[in-house]
C-alpha cells in the first residue's frame, strides 16, 4: 500500500476554487466599497445631502395626465409624483400589451397564409417595423404625422362619441347613476355567469358521455350580450355616459388619452407586434408537418387539427418569448420622455431629478421598479417552463 500523498495546496482544485472565489468576492467587495467612498466624498464636496427627506416636500410642477390619482399642484408631494409615474407606466404598458398581442398574432398568422400576397405583405410589415429604432418611430408618429395632420379640437375627427384631435383621443366614460340599481345589475350578471359556467360543465359532461358537441362559446357569448343588456334594462339602466363635450380650447369630460400617450401607444404597438408576429410564425412553424398529417390521417377536420394539435403545441413555443416582449414593451415605454408622456422615467428620473438633484435615490428607485418587473417576468417564465416540462419531459 502506498502512503497517501498530500496534494500540494495550489494543485488541489477545491482549494483553488475556494481561493479564486474569495479573491473574486474581495475584489468585487473592494470595488463597491471604494465606489461608495468616492461617492460619499463627492457628495460632501458638492454639499449634496442624500436622503429621502425630499419625498415630503411639495412638488412645484403640474402633471397633466393623472387618471387614477388625485394630483394637485401645490399640495401633492414629490413621492406622489413617483406613484403617478408608476401608474402611467403601467397604463401605457397594459394598453400596449393588449394591442400588440392582438395585432402581432394576426400578422403572425397571416404571415403563413397560403395567399402569396398576404404572406409577403405581413413579411414587409414585420421587416419595416422591427428594423427601425422605436424612438424614431415614436417621434415620427407624434411630431411628423399626428401633431401636424390631426385637426384642432373644434374640427375633431368624430367616431360616434369618440373624438380624435391634435390634443389626443377622447372617449365617453361610464358613470354610475344609481348605486343600488348598479349593484342589482352586477348581481344579475354574476348569476348569469354562474349559470353559464354550470351550462359549460354540463355540456362537457354531455360531450364526454355521448360525443355530442354543443356550440358553448357561441351560446355563452350570445347569452352574455343579450342577457347582459336585458338585465341592464331590468335593473333600471344604472349607468350613464359622460361624453366629451367641446369646450373653448379642448374637450371636457369623458376619458382622455393625451396625444403623447396616443402616439407612444401607437408606436409601441406597431414595433412590438412585429416581434410578436415573428414569435407566432416561428411557433406555428415549429410544429412539424408530421403532426398535422397524423391528425388529418386520423380523420380530424382541418379546424379540429388546428385547435387540438397545432395550437396547443405552437403556444408552448410562442408564449415564453412573447412574455419577454411584454417586459421589453414595458421598459420601452420609458421612451415616452421624448414626446412628454408623464410616465415614471419622464416625471421621476427626469423632472424630479432636475428639480431636486437627488440622483442616487431617484435613479435607484427607478431602477428598482424596473428590476422588480423584470424579476416578476422571469418568475412567470420559470413557472411556465416548469409547468410545460412536467407534461412534456
Amino acid at each position, binding site marked *: 500500500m502506498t502512503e497517501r500523498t498530500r496534494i500540494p495546496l495550489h494543485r488541489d482544485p477545491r482549494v483553488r476554487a475556494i481561493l479564486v472565489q474569495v479573491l*473574486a468576492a474581495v475584489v468585487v467587495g473592494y470595488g463597491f466599497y471604494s465606489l461608495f467612498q468616492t*461617492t460619499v466624498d463627492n457628495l460632501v*464636496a458638492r454639499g449634496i445631502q442624500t436622503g429621502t427627506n425630499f419625498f415630503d416636500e411639495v412638488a412645484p410642477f403640474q402633471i397633466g395626465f393623472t387618471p387614477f390619482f388625485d394630483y394637485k399642484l401645490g399640495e401633492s408631494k414629490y413621492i406622489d409624483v413617483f406613484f403617478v409615474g408608476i401608474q402611467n407606466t403601467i397604463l401605457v404598458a397594459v394598453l400596449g400589451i393588449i394591442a400588440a398581442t392582438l395585432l402581432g398574432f394576426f400578422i403572425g398568422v397571416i404571415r403563413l397564409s397560403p*395567399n402569396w400576397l*398576404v404572406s409577403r405583405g405581413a413579411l414587409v410589415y414585420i*421587416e*419595416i417595423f422591427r428594423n427601425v429604432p422605436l*424612438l424614431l418611430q415614436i417621434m415620427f408618429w407624434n*411630431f411628423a404625422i399626428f401633431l401636424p395632420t390631426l385637426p384642432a379640437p373644434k374640427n375633431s375627427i368624430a367616431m360616434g362619441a369618440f373624438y380624435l384631435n391634435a390634443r389626443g383621443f377622447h372617449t365617453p366614460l361610464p358613470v354610475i347613476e344609481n348605486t343600488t340599481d348598479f349593484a342589482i345589475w352586477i348581481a344579475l350578471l354574476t348569476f348569469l355567469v354562474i349559470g353559464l359556467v354550470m351550462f359549460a360543465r354540463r355540456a362537457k359532461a354531455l360531450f364526454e358521455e355521448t360525443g355530442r358537441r354543443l356550440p358553448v362559446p357561441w351560446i355563452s357569448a350570445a347569452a352574455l350580450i343579450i342577457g347582459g343588456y336585458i338585465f341592464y334594462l331590468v335593473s333600471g339602466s344604472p349607468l350613464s355616459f359622460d361624453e366629451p363635450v367641446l369646450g373653448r380650447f379642448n374637450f371636457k369630460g369623458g376619458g382622455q388619452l393625451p396625444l403623447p400617450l396616443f402616439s407612444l401607444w401607437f408606436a409601441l404597438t406597431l414595433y412590438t407586434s412585429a416581434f410578436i408576429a415573428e414569435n407566432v410564425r416561428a411557433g406555428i412553424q415549429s410544429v412539424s408537418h408530421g403532426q398535422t398529417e397524423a391528425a388529418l390521417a386520423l380523420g380530424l377536420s382541418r379546424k379540429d387539427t388546428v385547435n387540438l394539435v397545432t395550437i396547443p403545441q405552437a403556444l408552448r413555443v410562442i408564449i415564453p418569448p412573447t412574455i419577454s416582449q411584454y417586459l421589453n414593451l414595458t421598459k420601452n415605454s420609458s421612451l415616452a420622455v421624448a414626446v412628454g408622456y408623464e410616465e415614471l*422615467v419622464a416625471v421621476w428620473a427626469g423632472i424630479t431629478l432636475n428639480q431636486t438633484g437627488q440622483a442616487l435615490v431617484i435613479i435607484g428607485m427607478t431602477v428598482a421598479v424596473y428590476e422588480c418587473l423584470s424579476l416578476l417576468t422571469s418568475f412567470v417564465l420559470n413557472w411556465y417552463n416548469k409547468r410545460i416540462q412536467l407534461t412534456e419531459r
Partner: protein
Amino acid sequence: MSEVKIFVPAPDRSPPSNTLGPVAWLRENLFGSISSSIATLLFFYLCFSYLPPFVDWAFIKANWTGTDRSVCEANAAGACWTFINVRLEQILFGLYFASKPEELWRPTLIFVLFFALLLPLLFERTPGKKWLSIALLGVFPVVFYFVVYGGSFGIPQSNTTQWGGFLLTFALAFVGILLALPIGILLALGRRSEMPVIRSICVIYIEFWRGTPLITILFMASVMLPLFFPAGVEFDKVVRAMIGITMFQSAYTAEAVRGGLAAIPKGQAEAAMALGLGYWRRTVLITLPQALKISIPSIVNTFIALFKDTSLVSIIGLLDLLNMAQTAARSVEWKGYDIEGYLFAGFIYWAFCYGMSRYSQNLEHKLDTNRRN
C-alpha cells in the same frame, strides 16, 4: 423457370398543363379559396389606394435639387429631399466635420476603410479572414482614434462633444460591441462556472443590466457617473454614454454567448479533459471557438438591437443620427420638413438593421443545415 423479362423504364411525361405555369401559380397562391381571393382583392385595393400617392410624393413629384426651401415651397406636392441634400454632411458626419470641408476626408476615410474590411468578411470563401478580423477589431479602432479624434500627426483634434450624425451612431455602436464582446464572453463563462460565488456575481451583473431600460442607464451614466469617480477624473458626455452602453451591451452579449456554450455537447469538454487540457486551454481551444461560431447569429441580433438603441442618446442631448436629422428639420431654414428628416434617418437605420438581420438569418440557416448533415 420462366423467361426473365427485361425491365424498361417508361419515359417521363409532362404533367397536365393545368398544374404548371403562371396561371396555375396564380390560382394556387392568390385565388386558392374564396377567402384567399377576397384577401387578394383587398390587398390590391389597399395597394392601389395608398402606394401611388406615396410614390408620387416621395419620388415622382419630389424636389431633389436646389439650395434652400424656396424650391420646396414652390412645389409642395412632393417630398423635399433638397433639405436632406443640403444637410447631408451634417446628418452623416456631425457639426464639426460639416463645418470644416477640409476635414471631411477623415470620416470619409474611416467609413471606406470600415466597409473595405467588413464586406470581405461576410463571404464564406474569403482567404485570410483571421487577419481581416484582427485588422477590423484591433487596428481599425486605433486608426479611428487617430483619424477622427486626431490631435497628433498634425491632424487637428476634434472634440467628441461635436461628433454627431451617423458618425456618432457608428462610433457608439462599434465601441459598444467591441468592448462588450470580451466582457460578455467572460460573463458567460462565469455564469456557467461551478463556483457559486463567481456564478452569482455574473448572474447579478447580467440580470441587473438586462432588467433596466437603456434610457435609465444613460441617465445614470450622465448624472451619476461623475459621482463615482474621484474629483479630477472627468469624462465628456460621449464617453459617459459609451460606458453605459458597454455595460448594458455586455450583459446581452453574455446571454448570446451562453446560448452557444450550452449547445456544445459535453463530450467535447470531456475529450479535451482526457487529453489533459486545463480549464482555460479547454475553453480557449475547444469549447469557445465552437460556441462562438454557433452564437454569431444571436450576437448579431444583439448588435442590431444595440444599433437601434444608440438612438436613445438623443434623449440625453447627443446629436446622433436621429437627433441630427431632427435638429436639422427644426432649424429656421428647414422648419416643417420633419417627415423627410425622419424618413431619411429611418431608412439608414433600416438598411443597416435589415442587412444585418438577413446576414444573421442566412448564417443561422447555414449552421442549421451543417449540424443536421
